[in-house]
């Protein structure tokens, strides 16, 4: 290697396709990339853009139906495509490291984690077992694991997601590889843990000078981590260069659109605020939701089961026309609350809707249910695959008697137009629609009931960045027009700062903070709120 001048990884005009039942599919088109020692290249693209295919191609781990086109994959000047399978095996882990999205699946569940690192060290660095164990311990210590010797004796299921990802990272760095591929390494982790892992990555990368390819869909995150940036769209690199330069002045239309879709807390989507004297539409008073009641059989057999509290003593009130953002990590109880309000979870305490108070799920009747509509995270799951879009949207109209039989078709068409879909989509089935279109149908169905409260449970998180923004705008627009109250549940803190009037912070089933969005940075914020806000990268240059 002759220093920074010759790149560690050099991809030249590489093309890759897959043979599918419907004919050949071109996944990568003439991709060219170069990563020098000590540099991190961020590869950003939406789902299906080919970014993971590229990582597989570099690892020489292609499925049987892959068809490689022209081009070269050079690792320190050696063409990976010319290597024999045995050479490839020897190279993986030693010269190319890899960190995947989900640490739970990249570790062997039947082996102690220490053993998994030791194995790599013995195989590739030819260390004696005892020496390997010592090296492994120091590697784990370096990744910030408090008691590394202890961790080495644990199995993967005995560690948290963040700890597991640290072990995977330690393994990737174990043999001082020339390059490490990171494929969405923090997407499966909670915000705060993700931030810690990102910081760890940056430290280690600086310390070892390894070249890194960092694949992600999260532009804001990549802008913080990567020196260089490549934007991939439909298998083509549409723009590449220094990360900062692309962020401040993107040249390609696609990169501009992507950057514009990154939620930035400074850009408010909501212009109006509900009047201070607006009546309260929804109020929770000491609402508590428990999970995991013991079944009859468990009781008969004397089996004990841990009772889990999904949410404890949650109290808040939302006014008419207000958007209340609910944030928190996974398992913090935010969806649990929404499901209780929608009448899907039994609860203790009370829920008041427009002056009417219910004290148990069984008190909830159809009139209440009409006024409270819920939109779920994943439109693939929330639309019945065997019903047409028109029937799906018409159902609330029929159920609640909101339109006369002759008018239903007309109303469905109007609703489709309101969510900016063509009227003739009514005849389609959900699988003929894209993810964003499906979510629009789910939104149309919720608003068809003319609700007073709309519960949005992570409605943008299963969508691509560019689609997220348009769905969020649509929701805000509909909310303003109908005057409905909205509970917007999300883990995306930048997004909630764009559209909520007030924000609730949940942690381990408890409400820890509730504040108007303008007071995000106020001094009296709960420490947990602070750490959540700090953990989220804000797009550089915006």
């Amino acid at each position, binding site marked *: 290697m002759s220093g920074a001048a010759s790149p560690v990884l050099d991809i030249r005009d590489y093309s890759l396709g897959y043979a599918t039942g419907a004919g050949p599919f071109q996944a990568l088109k003439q991709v060219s990339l170069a990563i020098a020692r000590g540099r991190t290249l961020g590869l950003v693209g939406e789902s299906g853009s080919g970014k993971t295919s590229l990582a597989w191609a570099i690892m020489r781990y292609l499925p049987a139906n892959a068809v490689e086109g022209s081009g070269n994959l050079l690792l320190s000047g050696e063409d990976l495509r010319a290597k024999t399978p045995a050479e490839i095996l020897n190279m993986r882990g030693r010269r190319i490291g890899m960190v995947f999205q989900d640490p739970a699946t990249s570790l062997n569940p039947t082996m102690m984690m220490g053993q998994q690192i030791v194995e790599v060290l013995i195989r590739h660095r030819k260390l004696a077992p005892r020496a390997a164990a010592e090296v492994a311990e120091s590697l784990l210590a370096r990744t910030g694991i408090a008691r590394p010797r202890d961790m080495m004796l644990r199995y993967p299921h005995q560690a948290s997601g963040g700890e597991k990802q640290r072990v995977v990272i330690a393994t990737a760095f174990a043999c001082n590889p020339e390059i490490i591929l990171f494929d969405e390494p923090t997407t499966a982790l909670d915000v705060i843990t993700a931030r810690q892992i990102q910081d760890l990555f940056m430290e280690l990368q600086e310390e070892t000078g390894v070249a890194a390819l960092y694949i992600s869909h999260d532009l804001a995150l990549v802008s913080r981590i990567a020196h260089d940036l490549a934007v991939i769209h439909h298998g083509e690199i549409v723009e590449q260069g220094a990360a900062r330069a692309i962020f401040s002045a993107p040249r390609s239309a696609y990169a501009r659109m992507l950057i514009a879709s990154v939620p930035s807390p400074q850009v408010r989507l909501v212009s109006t605020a509900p009047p201070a004297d607006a009546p309260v539409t929804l109020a929770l008073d000491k609402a508590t939701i428990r999970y995991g009641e013991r079944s009859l059989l468990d009781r008969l057999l004397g089996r004990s089961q841990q009772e889990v509290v999904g949410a404890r003593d949650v109290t808040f009130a939302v006014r008419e026309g207000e958007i209340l953002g609910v944030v928190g990590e996974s398992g913090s109880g935010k969806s649990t609350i929404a499901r209780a309000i929608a009448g899907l979870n039994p609860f203790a305490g009370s829920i008041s809707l427009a002056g009417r108070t219910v004290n148990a799920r069984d008190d909830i009747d159809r009139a209440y249910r009409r006024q409270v509509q*819920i939109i779920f995270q994943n439109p693939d799951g929330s639309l019945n695959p065997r019903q047409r879009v028109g029937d799906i949207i018409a159902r609330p109209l029929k159920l609640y008697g909101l339109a006369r039989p002759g008018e239903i078709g007309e109303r469905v068409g109007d609703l489709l137009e309101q969510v900016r879909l063509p009227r003739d989509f009514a005849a389609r089935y959900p699988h003929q629609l894209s993810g964003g279109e499906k979510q629009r149908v789910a939104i149309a*169905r919720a608003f068809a009931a003319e609700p007073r409260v709309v519960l949005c449970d992570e409605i943008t998180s299963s969508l691509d960045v560019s689609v997220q923004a348009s769905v969020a705008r649509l929701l805000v627009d509909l909310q303003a027009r109908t005057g409905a109250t909205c509970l917007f549940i999300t883990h995306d803190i930048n997004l909630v700062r764009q559209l909520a009037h007030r924000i609730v912070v949940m942690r381990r089933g408890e409400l820890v903070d509730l504040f108007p969005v303008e007071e995000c940075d106020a001094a009296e914020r709960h420490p947990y709120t602070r750490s959540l806000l700090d953990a989220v990268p804000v797009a550089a240059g915006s």
Partner: protein
Amino acid sequence: MREILRHPTGLAGALMLSLVLTAALVGSLIAPYDPQLFHPIARLQGPSTTHWLGTDQFGRDILSRILNGAWATVSFGVTATVLGVAAGAAVGMTAGLIGGAVDNVIMRIVDGVLAVPDLLFTLLIVTVLGGGTGHAMLAVAVAFTPGMARIARSAVLSVRTREYVQAAVARGESTGYVLVREVLPNAMGPLIVEATIRVSFAIMLGATLGFLGLGAQPPSTEWGLMIAEARQFMFRNPWAVIAPGAAIAVAAMGFNLFGDALRDVMDPRGRRR
């Protein structure tokens, strides 16, 4: 359907099935002889140009008897399966939807019954009720119920947690609507596949009961019964046993392979249309 025909085992299954179904529907019309016509001179003959599959101990034409008996055999398999699926689906879906103690009690009973082999179970029922086609059919249906209940229950459980079902519940839909419009159409796939495969088991069970003299009674042309009747003369004319045996094999395999292919086609999302 086109995908099943493209599937190699599916094609084989479909060919066998079409053969068997044709025989079942028009067999008695195209049969060269009257299946019950005694012909004392031409007894126990091997295959010839006049009797393609030979004759039995009464000189009856075996080909005609097989063609004539196809309806009895296939209708037995299909009816018994449909009854079993309907009963099993009702039991399983109830257990899956209600859950809790009801589910526990029903499923433990189902587990108990499943531990008894199908044949033994049908024999038990036929012994209690007495022989005959109707009782044999009922016995097979009852024997199928617990297995189908198990499958129906798991299909319902996996569909029940889907968000479109949750959405329907949150809308305030009645239980009947949720079950019939949201759950059932999406839980049907595995049931249909299992039912197709089970028709072949039902045919085998029916033939076995016929052979044991507990199912169809003479002079029926049911295939199991044909084997039983010809058994004593097996060494003088093996064709009288081999031909109906082969017919049973083709029918059972046809449904089985077709069911396998159906499962493969419907499995990966099953939504390609």
